[in-house]
């Protein structure tokens, strides 16, 4: 399955067995999060992850 990258506009290869929340690194450098609503798939740049947890 191919979906358009919301950042660079180029196609992104999405596996058929993709799960909600799955992350796909696109060749333009962005990490995309897979959002699923029923059978429709959207891609969104990954946000809201605190890297610096510390414990």
């Amino acid at each position, binding site marked *: 399955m191919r979906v358009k990258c919301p950042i660079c506009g180029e196609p992104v290869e999405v596996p058929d067995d993709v799960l909600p929340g799955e*992350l796909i690194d696109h060749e333009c450098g962005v990490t995309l999060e897979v959002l699923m609503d029923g059978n429709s798939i959207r891609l969104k740049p990954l946000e809201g992850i605190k890297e610096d947890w510390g414990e």
Partner: protein
Amino acid sequence: MIVVKVGGEVLARNLDGIVESVGRRADRGIVLVHGGGIIVTELCKRMGVEPKFVTSPEGLRSRYTDRDEIEVYVMAMAGKINKRIVSGLLSRGVKSVGISGADGPTAIAERKERIVIVDERGRKRVIDGGYTGRIVEIRTELIDLLLSNGFTVVIAPVAVDGKGNLLNVDADQMAFKLSSAVRADKLVMLTDVPGVLINNRVIERIRTNEVNEMIKRVGFGMNRKLMSAANAIEQGVKEVIISSGLVEDPLAHALAGGGTIIS
């Protein structure tokens, strides 16, 4: 005023000894922070709640507290263990109040809302962060009120976030942050080892400026304790004692210098 932290291992083996020892010194003003991980694990097993683990993209495997597990955690910590200590103190004539960090509120924590894991198929995924928290604020109003009215305070390692989620927090971290916040004279960490060990010998005293050197030579659990201890002292705690909870009258033993003093 002293803060005492006692871990789950010690409670499982010597709850009565700890309660007796704390009860004897209740007039000094004591805040007892308890752990209880073993009891949580046991209870999860009995209830068919499987422990869950997640793997980070860096390959680090860690325990994951999901919605089922936080329920069991709160029941075991704030229910079973906390009330058993309180009733033990009471039967020795010591008036005490058992609370969790959510009461007051006393311990406000932040949870990781989302985390990235590598799933069973080896693919990266973002999932809910679960119910583990990092304490970001201690409010001392409730504890101060209880202590100044002669109650011994027993605290379960449960915190709460701004949305009212109950969170699993590390009991060591709770004890360190609490003793800084209330400016305790002493923080006594009662563990299942006799103190900070190097080459099988208990180190009697460690100055905060020696901690960085020391942490390379002690095990993982202990090095975190040492770093937090140095931190607590910088924040105003006079001394931290790491000592055995399995000896006779563990507090007397710790306060008499049995164990490692960090100052």
